[in-house]
């Protein structure tokens, strides 16, 4: 837990109109570390991830990437996004492009890599995540789990400093969840730095070094997975976990 800080979030707030979504978030993500963000729908997990990738502008506070404040107006958001990988809940693949085009678009257009080189790297990534031979298919010819793995390859294709995973299994049929979680598990073992917003508690326990519980836009409890998931101190966390337990999600 002593690596360099990759992402630092300091006092970040965000409101949509009157509704406060993030009420002062502090969080530090270190190199090779995985933090799981847990919390009910609407607790601000997605918004926080979107703020880090500068897809949503924050109201107050700072976000740092490798020590540099990225939420400063003078920073070009495009440069920041090129250093981060984002995987969406609903995959958001480009439906008019083939699988390989989805995976190489970023390296070719954003990083100026040669088409051939990008294709080779893309092919290797797809191969690695069990998608060899599907390069020329369109996204809608794939299952949800395969699509999400393509989205993961797309995010990895630009060799990001950190991965932001926004409930990557929530839109999948239960039997397809495993493949995607396996892929994330592999990445963690390789030392990928990531923030994972998730509803999969057993997965959080296994992969995350730290769990942060978000409640109404604030991190009200944070610590090792064993501590937060087994012996939470705050009544809100206890209630949240009890509900998941009752729904058979743990």
């Amino acid at each position, binding site marked *: 837990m002593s690596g360099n800080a990759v992402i630092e979030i300091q006092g970040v707030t965000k409101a949509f109109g009157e509704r406060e979504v993030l009420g002062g978030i502090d969080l530090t993500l270190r190199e090779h570390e995985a933090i799981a963000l847990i919390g009910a729908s609407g607790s601000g997990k997605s918004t926080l991830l*979107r703020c880090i*990738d500068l*897809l949503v502008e924050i109201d107050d506070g700072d976000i740092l990437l490798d020590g540099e404040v990225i939420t400063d107006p003078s920073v070009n*958001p*495009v440069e920041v*996004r*090129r250093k*981060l*990988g*984002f995987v*969406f809940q*609903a995959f*958001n*693949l*480009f*439906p*008019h492009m083939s699988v390989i085009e989805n995976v190489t*678009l*970023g390296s070719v*257009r*954003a*990083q100026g890599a040669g088409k051939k080189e990008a294709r080779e790297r893309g092919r290797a990534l797809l191969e690695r995540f069990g998608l060899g031979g599907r390069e020329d298919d*369109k996204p*809608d*010819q794939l299952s949800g789990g395969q699509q999400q793995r393509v989205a993961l390859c*797309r*995010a990895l294709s*630009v060799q990001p400093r950190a991965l932001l995973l926004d409930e990557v299994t929530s839109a999948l049929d239960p039997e397809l969840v495993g493949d995607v979680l396996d892929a994330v598990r592999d990445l963690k073992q390789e030392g990928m730095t990531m923030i994972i917003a998730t509803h999969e508690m057993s997965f959080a326990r296994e992969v995350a070094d730290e769990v942060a519980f978000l409640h109404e836009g604030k991190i009200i409890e944070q610590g090792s997975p064993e501590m937060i998931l087994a012996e939470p101190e705050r009544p809100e966390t206890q209630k949240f976990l009890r509900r998941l337990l009752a729904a058979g999600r743990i």
Partner: protein
Amino acid sequence: MKLFLGVEVIVLMLGLLVAVIRTSKAPALFPIRMLAAVYCDFFRGVPVILLVYLVGFGIPALDLEGVPKDPIILAGIALSLAYSSYVAEVYRAGIASIHPSQTDAGLATGLTRFQTLRFVVVPQAVRRVRPPLLNDFISLQKDVALVSVLGISEAFRIAQVEAASTFNYTPLIAAALLYLAVTFPMARILDHITAREQINS
């Protein structure tokens, strides 16, 4: 026919440009966004025949240096102005129909806003609005007949003259067939492309 093809190319490009400007969100672009909106409202609101008249007779009447006087070019300008405004709105509807999550994905992949538009949003939007674009395409092809008001001989004009001198209306039917000969295959080709794409996906 040459006039029609030239105008169509200009219309498709100019219309897209206006649509992209109208769907932009940057506050700094507000003035040209406003200009684009006025452009659409104005040229859609004026009857095409009036526009052809205005440009075709009005511009040469101003007697300016370096302004084209060829009635075919002037007619082409008038038709381009009118049809770009229609086509811009078709494109705009297409762009608006692409879910914002696609833009998010483009940006998250490291593309600039312009690249996201160019590689992600516009290609999908154009595919979606192909049928209404063809509608405007055909309607433009027919409105080429309006250039006859500038004294240009196109099929309809020639047929009219012929019919008037002989009291035989067959030339008009021939002219109608001539127009159909262009629009009909175009519609079928587009249907074919659309159907093929649906099978592919």
